[in-house]
Each structure stands twice: as structure tokens, then as C-alpha cells.
């Protein structure tokens, strides 16, 4: 049965009084994801904005067991936690790692890949705010083309990030894990039902959630949800779901209004027509790719739950 907003509990797993910026997309994502996951969970958080805004010792926003050590080891740490739960006979407990895009796409990619290859029984959630926000907005592998960050600044010679966004969900699909999905804070029902599905699946589950960041992207703080919607509309973010090898596109993007999306944000304000055209071309190619990938995997894997 599909979850509705009214089905989510009033009680918080991720408490109020956390210290995320006003309007933080990551906080919006995480507190709702936690509500779907419930109390029988253990959370691992690597170095990230979350590791700071979830409270500093001795305070903590999580009402469930919480573990944190370093930045690049989420995949490994949740593996250790999950095995420990197995030893303790706590089979009903879901181990969940929640990392930023930097901790996922860059420095933590190796540990993530290892855990996925071993098909560890865990949920890995990447909240994607498209840069290293905790350290003050530096570029990550997940930063889109053109975006200005403090390490891809707008200079006289080069303006913004020259490279393109790393497609981590696709990398995860290539690991043939049982469940890979993308979601966005701006599509609540899609998000909570993907979390629910992830919770009900066994093995390695990967979810990447689009989470706008007010200071990092440079927009008016009340626009978090609107930006997320625009991103999906223009193709800067896709809502996808790959179950046992079969890719499904959850929402057809209109593939338009890219400029509206870009102009709302300080990080893209410098972009000229040429750069925008490059970006448009890249997302169109991506969209074609995903359509083809979905068709192909529907044919290849339809009816087969096993052997991905």
C-alpha cells in the first residue's frame, strides 16, 4: 500500500531543535525519511553538514542509536554495524547510513562500492546538495556543470565548474544491487514511498535525494521546494527507481525551463548562453540515455526477480 502524508507519524525520530540553516533541504529530507524508517534503526553519519546540524556533544537530534567517525567510510561503517546487528540477533533493526554527496560521490565512493558489491543488508542514503557544504561550499563530484563554488569560482578565465555531474545512481545500478532510487524533497509521496520500499527490501539499498541548500546555491530561503520541482521539470534531476535491475522512470521531465531554474540561484547567475547550451545538451543526452536504459532493462529483466 502506498503511503500518504497522513500516514506518517507526528512523533519525530530526527528531533526539532537541530541547527540546520533555515530552509535546509537536507533537514527536510532527513526528518521525513526518518519518520518512514521508524524507531528500529541505527544511523551512521559521516562528516557532513548533517554531522554538525544533528547536534554536537552532548546534544543529539537523533532519538535512535547514532554512530559517527569520519568522512569517507559510510559504506564500511554501516557494513560493520549491520554485521554486529546480525551477531546480536537484532534482525529487525535496519542499519542506515546518511551521507552527503561529497561523502558519497568522491571520498566515500570506494567504501560505498565495496559495501554494494558485498550486498550488505543496509540502506545508504545520499542527500545531494551538490557540493561540500559543511566546509563552506566547495565543488564535489556531484556539483553540476557551470555551478560556481569556492573551488570552482567565477574568474576572468574560467567561470564555475568545468566538469559535469557524476552520476552516482547509475554507478550504483552497475553494482546490481536490489534497489537504487533517486528522489527529491519536492516530491513527498514519491520520496516516502521509495523509502518505504527500501525499508521493505533486503540487501543493499541506495537512495539519492535531491536536497537544495540555501547558502550553497544562493537562493531565497523559502524557495527550497520550488527549486526542487523545477530541477525535475527541466531535467537537472530525474526521479528514477531501479528494482532488481529494472529501471523505471517515475516522472517524465518536461525538459524545459532550465533557464528559470538557473536564474533563481546565485551559483549559476554568471552562466552565458554557451555554457547553458552545453548544460542543456548534457542533460538531454542523459535523458535519452535513461529512456533507453529503462527500455532495455525492462526487456532484459522483466519477470526475473533473481540473478541481476
Amino acid at each position: 500500500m502506498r503511503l500518504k502524508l497522513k500516514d506518517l507519524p507526528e512523533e519525530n525520530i530526527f528531533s526539532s531543535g537541530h541547527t540546520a540553516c533555515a530552509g535546509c533541504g537536507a533537514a527536510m529530507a532527513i526528518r521525513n525519511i526518518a519518520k518512514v524508517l521508524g524507531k528500529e534503526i541505527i544511523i551512521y553519519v559521516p562528516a557532513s553538514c548533517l554531522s554538525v546540524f544533528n547536534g554536537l556533544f552532548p546534544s543529539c537530534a537523533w532519538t535512535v542509536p547514532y554512530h559517527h567517525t569520519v568522512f569517507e567510510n559510510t559504506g564500511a561503517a554501516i557494513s560493520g554495524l549491520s554485521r554486529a546487528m546480525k551477531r546480536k540477533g537484532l534482525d529487525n533493526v535496519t542499519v542506515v547510513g546518511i551521507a552527503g554527496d561529497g561523502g558519497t560521490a568522491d571520498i566515500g565512493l570506494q567504501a560505498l562500492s565495496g559495501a554494494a558489491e558485498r550486498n550488505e543488508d543496509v540502506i545508504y542514503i545520499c542527500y545531494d546538495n551538490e557540493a561540500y557544504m559543511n566546509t563552506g561550499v566547495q565543488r564535489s563530484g556531484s556539483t553540476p556543470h557551470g555551478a560556481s563554488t569556492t573551488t570552482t569560482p567565477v574568474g576572468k578565465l574560467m567561470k564555475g565548474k568545468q566538469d559535469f555531474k557524476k552520476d552516482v545512481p547509475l554507478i550504483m545500478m552497475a553494482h546490481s544491487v536490489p534497489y537504487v532510487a533517486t528522489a527529491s524533497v519536492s516530491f513527498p509521496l514519491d520520496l516516502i514511498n521509495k523509502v518505504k520500499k527500501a525499508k521493505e527490501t533486503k540487501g543493499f539499498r541506495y537512495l539519492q535525494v535531491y536536497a537544495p541548500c540555501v547558502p550553497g546555491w544562493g537562493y531565497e530561503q523559502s524557495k527550497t521546494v520550488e527549486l526542487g520541482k523545477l530541477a525535475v521539470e527541466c531535467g537537472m534531476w530525474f526521479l528514477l527507481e531501479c528494482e532488481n535491475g529494472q529501471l523505471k522512470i517515475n516522472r517524465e521531465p518536461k525538459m524545459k525551463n532550465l533557464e528559470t531554474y538557473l536564474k533563481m540561484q546565485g551559483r549559476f547567475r554568471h552562466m552565458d548562453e554557451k555554457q547553458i547550451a552545453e548544460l542543456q545538451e548534457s542533460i538531454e543526452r542523459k535523458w535519452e540515455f535513461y529512456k533507453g536504459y529503462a527500455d532495455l532493462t525492462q526487456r532484459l529483466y522483466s519477470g526475473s526477480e533473481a540473478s541481476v
Partner: protein
Amino acid sequence: MRRVVGSNYATSHAVMRARVEVIAAYPITPQTQMVEHIAKFINDGIMDCEYINVESEHSAISAVIASQAAGVRSFTSTASQGLALMHELLFSAGGLRLPIVMGVVNRSVGSTGGIWVEYNDSMPQRDCGWLQMYVETNQEVHDMILQAYKIAEDKRVLLPIMICSDGFILSHTVEPVELAEQEEVDGFLPKYEARHSYLDPKDPIASGIVTPREYRQEFAYQIHRAMLEAKDVIGEVNRDFADKFGRDHSGLIETEFVEDAEVILLTLGTVTSTARGVVRELRKKGKKAGLVKVRAFRPYPAERIAEVCKDARAVGVYDRSVSFGVGGPHYLEVRNALFDSDVPVIDFIGGLGGRDVAEADVRSMYDVLLEAAKTGKAKRNIEWVNTRGVVLG
């Protein structure tokens, strides 16, 4: 059961007997056989344990920190580059007070080093909040893995521990080892009961939450104090082990002929065995030579060293690594231990990159010490043993 095995096998057997529940490790020469033996035990069904085939040492230590934080007895092992890769997380294990046991098979790390023994992998880790013990025989490796859990899990300690053994010299040398039976070990090492760190939704704990400056210094002091208390615990556990197994490894240090010794050499690791032979030989010749095998490097038994060396006329320190521009790290510890003594203390750096330390080398160290005892001063404080183009003494 007595079998002729290498130290990697001895370690693996002890880990199995310690009823370790989560292991994550990654292969690296000369530790590789350890991950292989354990995998075989598990696949043969004689060991019941979660084994995580991680993709790096960084992940190995991350995973066992997590499992130990969750309240489950955990083990990892590595060497050299692997230990260097773990470095970042070693501070987490110490900071979170997790009694993880790690088998370190010493090997040189970095460029111009090969795959052979040197302590420049473990020595730089001495400030991470881990206990460090160095061993001399395969039997001792086996016994110390069992003791390590009991030391680390003692509530006065609650710190991770490295059992350091010389690569190849122990790992790839087979010698007779008395391999413990399960009942014996069960009578010595109780099941691990996590009291301070466990992760269970029924009683939620925040483990490792970022700590602001208002608290760090007190946490650091706690670790320092636990490290000091570990000195007693190491001795107690050794006696308990000796009672149950009949093998006494004598705790923090072990001494030979020190009572009336004029010169004393302090060693770490397998060089001790060679030195034992040389000391006996010297004694036969009427030379008053003594030997101290330093077993614990963290905590460092400074008081014991000072006590043992108080009547000596020259003290030598064997170092299998260098703190460049200063001398050997072990030497610095001994200088500190003997801070109020005016006896000459001489550092002997040698055996780097697995270079053999032969009887002749040890003899040359004693020669230098005997000379210093005679003159009352050291010609040089830092000596390089068997180094081409560098004259000793």
C-alpha cells in the same frame, strides 16, 4: 595442541578461540596469511563469525570500529601501508574507547622500504590512543592475542590494542606453538559484555558525535589515565594467564641478568632472542651484561625501566625505526625514563627494511656499551648499526 606454525596461523587460531564475532581485514604482505587462515576457518565451519571482505584497510578499521561500538567483540589485522591507511581511524577507535584487538605484522612503510620488518609502521601510531605490545615468538603472539582482549576490555582500560610482531621473522617462520583449546580459553576470557558503548534501539546511545572544545580535553585526559592504569592491568592479566596456561610472559618487561649488570641493552621484538644468546656468551666471558625485553610500548613502562637500569653504567636502546633528525623513538622513551640519571644512554638504530640483525651486530652494540661504561660517557648518542659508510662507536 602443539603444532609447528607461523605467527599468522598462531594469531588466527587465537582469534578463533577468543570467540571474536566480527572481523574485517585486508591482505598485505606479510600479514596476508592471517586473512586467509581466518577465511578458511569460517568456510570450514570451525569458526562462527561475521567476516567482512572489505575493499581496503581504511574500510576494515571503519567496519570493526562500528561493530565494536555496537557492542560486539571485533578484530582486524594489517601491516605497513595498510596501517598507514588506517591511521585516520586509529584516533576514532582510541577516542571512542573501543577495545578492538589488531594484529600488526611489522613491515617498513613508504618509499625505499620493502616488504620486510621495520617499526616505522607502528611507531608513528603510538599517539592514537592504542596500547602497543611487541612480541618475540609465535607462542607469544598467540598468547598475547588472548591476553589482549582481557586487557583492552578491562573497565579500567577500555582502549584498543595492537599486538606487533616482526614481519617474516615471525610471520613466515614456523616454530612449535601450543595452540589453546576452546575450554581453556573460555575459562580465561569471559564473553564480552559491552557496558559503555553499544547500539540498540531499546536503549539509544550517541556514539562519536562531534565534540566541541568544551569537552575534548577531559576526554583526552581520560585516555591518558586509562593508559597509565593499563600498566597494572597488563601485569594482572599476565599473571592470570600464567596461572591458567602455565606460560609467563612477565607483563610489561622481561629481564635477563640485570641484577648486577654494568651494561644493559633494551630491545623490542625478535632481536631480543638473538640478544639473549649474546648476553649469555658475554656472561660466560665474565662481562656484566644484561638485557631488558620491552614488551609494552604504550603505555611505556618508564618507572620499571628506571628501576631496572638504576645501577647500570651504560644503557643501550635498540631501535628498528627512526624519528628523522632526532634518533629512534624507543630511545626517546628511555631517555625520558632515565631523565634524572647521568648514565650514558646510547641508541642503536639498525635492522631497517628487514636488514638482518645478527649476533655480530648485537655484540657490537654491547662492545660500545662496555666501552662507555668504562669511560663513563658515550662517544655518540645515536649509533647506526651495520650501515655502510657509517662507523659504529
